[in-house]
């Protein structure tokens, strides 16, 4: 780790102001950034910790019935809520207890790791990512591996999840890291089904639109029988070929549909 300075603003406004410094880097729960810095792979001169900003923490509901989760809310807190069980189940399987008690949803979606779990939940739930500057639909937010619509210095303050009628997330764990080798979030709303896939694609999280169409007509695993995912563009590595990942997408989608009931 290189030397750096650290600031702990207590309000969002102070944090936004502090992030105008060119050297500044926002620090959420630090579960990605700190290990990266310890490896000397990142060298921010100044960290702006978002952990002390009370207004970015907590979970409640808005008038549309959406579950509104502050960007600074930990995975552990999300795992403990019961308004959106599929999301709670997803959060409960991220990392280990230490990670879940430090890591935050805002940090995770801002990082957009291609193997992170939350992006699948956001995309499948048609969530809205709220920042200090604007609201961004999930469909417009995740732009590719480690790439989002966020501008420099923009902070994810809240994520608003419409709560589906039925939903489930199936994570097939990579054996070493236990990040998803393939993770599929299926969410059934009154106006249709959304399916989002993480871990698999070189382009990061994506929606499997053929499955969405089929499942919107018939919400059962059998609806997927005639569908296949192309291996093109799928990640191929030590833990699985692109073809294997493509195969798993179908298997995990079917399991998510069955589990969602």
């Amino acid at each position, binding site marked *: *780790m290189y*030397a750096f300075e650290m600031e702990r603003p207590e309000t969002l406004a102070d944090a936004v102001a502090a992030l105008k410094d060119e050297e500044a880097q926002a620090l959420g729960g630090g579960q990605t950034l700190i290990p990266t810095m310890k*490896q*000397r792979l990142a060298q921010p001169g100044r960290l702006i910790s978002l952990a002390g900003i009370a207004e970015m923490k907590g979970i409640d509901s808005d008038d549309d019935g959406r579950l509104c989760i502050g960007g600074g809310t930990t995975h552990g807190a999300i795992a403990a809520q019961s308004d959106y069980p599929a999301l709670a189940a997803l959060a409960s399987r991220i990392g280990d207890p230490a990670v879940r008690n430090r890591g935050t949803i805002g940090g995770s979606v801002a990082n957009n790791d291609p193997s992170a779990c939350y992006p699948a939940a956001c995309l499948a739930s048609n969530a809205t990512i709220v920042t200090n500057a604007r609201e961004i639909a999930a469909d417009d937010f995740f732009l590719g591996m480690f790439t989002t619509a966020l501008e420099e210095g923009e902070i994810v303050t809240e994520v608003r999840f419409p709560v589906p009628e039925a939903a489930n997330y199936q994570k*097939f764990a990579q*054996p*070493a*890291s236990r990040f998803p*080798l393939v993770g599929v979030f299926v969410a059934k709303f009154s106006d249709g089904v959304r399916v989002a896939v993480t871990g698999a694609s070189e382009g990061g999280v994506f929606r499997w639109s053929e499955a969405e169409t089929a499942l919107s007509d018939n919400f059962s695993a059998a609806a997927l029988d005639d569908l296949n995912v192309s291996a093109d563009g799928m990640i*191929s*590595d*030590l*833990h*699985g*070929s692109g*073809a*294997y990942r493509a*195969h*798993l997408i179908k*298997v995990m989608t079917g399991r998510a549909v069955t589990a969602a009931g």
Partner: protein
Amino acid sequence: MPKDHGIGASPKRREDIRFLTGDGRYTDDINLAGQAYVHFLRSDVAHGRIRSIDMAAAAGMPGVVRIFTGEDFADIGGLPCGWCVTDRHGNPMQEPKHPVLAHGKVRHVGDPICAVVAETLSQARDAAEAIVVDIEELPAVIDMKKAVQDGAIKVHDDLASNLCYDWGFIEDNKAAVDEAFKAAHHVTTLELVNNRLIANPMEPRVAVGQWEKGTGDYTLYTTSQNPHVIRLLMGAFVLGIPEHKLRVVSPDVGGGFGTKIFHYAEEAFCTFAAKACRRPVKWTSSRSEAFMSDAHGRDHVSKIELAMDAEGMFTALRTDTYANMGAYLSTFAPSVPTWLHGILMAGNYKTPLIYVNVKAVFTNTVPVDAYRGAGRPEATYQLERVIDKAARETGRDPIALRRQNFITEFPYATPVAVEYDTGDYHATMDKLIEIADLAGFDARLAESKTRGKLRGLGVNCYIEACGIAPSNLVGQLGARAGLYESATVRVNATGGLVVMTGSHSHGQGHETAFPQVVADMIGIPEDMIEIVHGDTANAPMGMGTYGSRSLAVGGSAMVRATEKIIAKAKKIAAHIMEASDQDIELKDGKFTVAGTDKSLAWGDVTLAAYVPHNYPLKDLEPGLEETAFYDPNNFTYPSGAYCCEVEVDPDTGKVTIERFAAADDFGNIINPMIVDGQVHGGIAQGIGQALLEACAYDENGQLISASYMDYAMPRADDMPMFTVDHSCQTPCTHNPLGVKGCGEAGAIGSPPAVVNAVCDALQRAGKNVTHIDMPLSPARVWAAMNDATANEGAAQPAARSSGSAEGRSLGGQA
């Protein structure tokens, strides 16, 4: 009623209190006044020629004490190899130089180029980043079979080739073995890979070097399984420090698993630099460094052939193995694929003719050396896999096939140079069948089916040669050291005693188990006995801990020393009680004279030894301290039978271990609880190898499983409850305790059980999969299953039985 003390009891491990409460004293806890820190700048390319090293900017950076390069070690010895294998033509192996810091060339990712000593670790790292190393990158030598072809790029320019040795065992039997294959009724052939592993002890390696200005004495604190061996190797061969001027201390060590046996460059560097810088120098490995500098394990590519007659009797066995040595010869590397592997090829079976060929190959990878089991898992895996395949090919029950070929008469001289003293392979198989509840398998199979899961059953046997080793024998085999052990028993005036043993404990529980033996011999409480180890200033000599040798060899030395103590104490007691020492008995801590009511407490005699007022001073020296060296006259041969039940998810290829049972024969047992724990740990590591762990390089020699993000260590929830039993006991006939050793058995016996079970599950489901290379990751199992039906995409080329096995067990995509 189980015993509550002494041999056969299971007292809780006394050392665990300090380990579990954070009060252990590990090498990294040692901080010496004025110490500086070293950071090693390591090669990030696998193979290259060093054109220049520009240290100008780095040398002037804050806190820098001195920067060392290979030039500083040009006149100093390299790291020695402790074993010289003679090849099948009678020539010694090719032995390259192994410099402390790279000199001229870098030969693997992680090879240290420069060592920066600075006031703080951060300053050392900062300065290392300012060093500019110009390296002419060369093609990496990775594929073992290509490496030994004519014209291949050489890892070591001054060697004739990348072939360390071509070993034939036993060469004189080769023709007869070939003849037996021609005459065979059935031949089963299997090509397989024993996957490269990284040991990953919880505590990374650490070294602290110290040099006393006043006396010129050196002290090295290091995370070693054998501090005396490090003192000898480093003192005599690397730095030229006589042993009386060098002390090596290995305090609490957080796991070794083999990888802390060897003498490493960092230890030599810290010792050397302490004098050069005139201040202590400390190095603590990061986990990332551990991945690319700790010796790796396994990494064999083998072809094994088993010849049988019409009745299913094994008539001959032939193996052909490429063994990866890595870029340099680590301390015991040449012995692992030869003398720890070839001599095990008979297994539990009376196969009359065996020929083992091993080609050891240099590659641009981290050196490979012993890892829990060391050679014996590789032998067992080949043998027990090919037997399973043979049973399937000939329509025989795999247990029945094994049983009909079991060795049943002991001692038994194998055709591979060793003589088993005892064993009862039917007994452990019978016990296994009972504890694994094989009778209930069909019901469990049916139940799995209702959940859509493919269930499979894998059984295998194993034998190992441990209690390493008779010095005269290993000397003939190329060992450059003896493999005895020593112990000093120092009885204090008030009756308590200290055992100073050359056996190092780094998790094995010696501090608990060793006193159980001495307590029984004398009849005093275990808490009167302290075990001291890990310091060359204490135990007279020590060959250390590996090869499941601590109790069988180190424990035997302790017994011999204790016997000397008792003999002397009886003479003292005889004098005081005015009797003949022939008539003195020692029981429950009390000396008695046979046939009388005279008695004397243990403490009275020990006090007399140090306050010799009424003492046979004319015949006996005062004091009560004895030393014994014990050199075994054979290996010990633990054996057993293992059973694994798996479920395979047909949709994903994911394997889960549902049941695991182990029936071991370890001879006599001192502490059954510790034995259980050793077997549990060994099985966990074996399951790790079978299902999870893959040390992988790409074709450029980059280590692609260089962190826990990609190297899958087994976790608790990967394991089932283990059912272990060691009630089958055929005591070792040649050591005083009748013990055989249990440290490696689990890791030796379990991988074939897992792979046999997975193949069984797939075969039962109608998939014609005869083999999958470890680790049986979901991706590999899925690919193999679909290869069987769709004939596309093998798990790994070497998994094919067509003879197309590539000469590498290394990485790339699944």
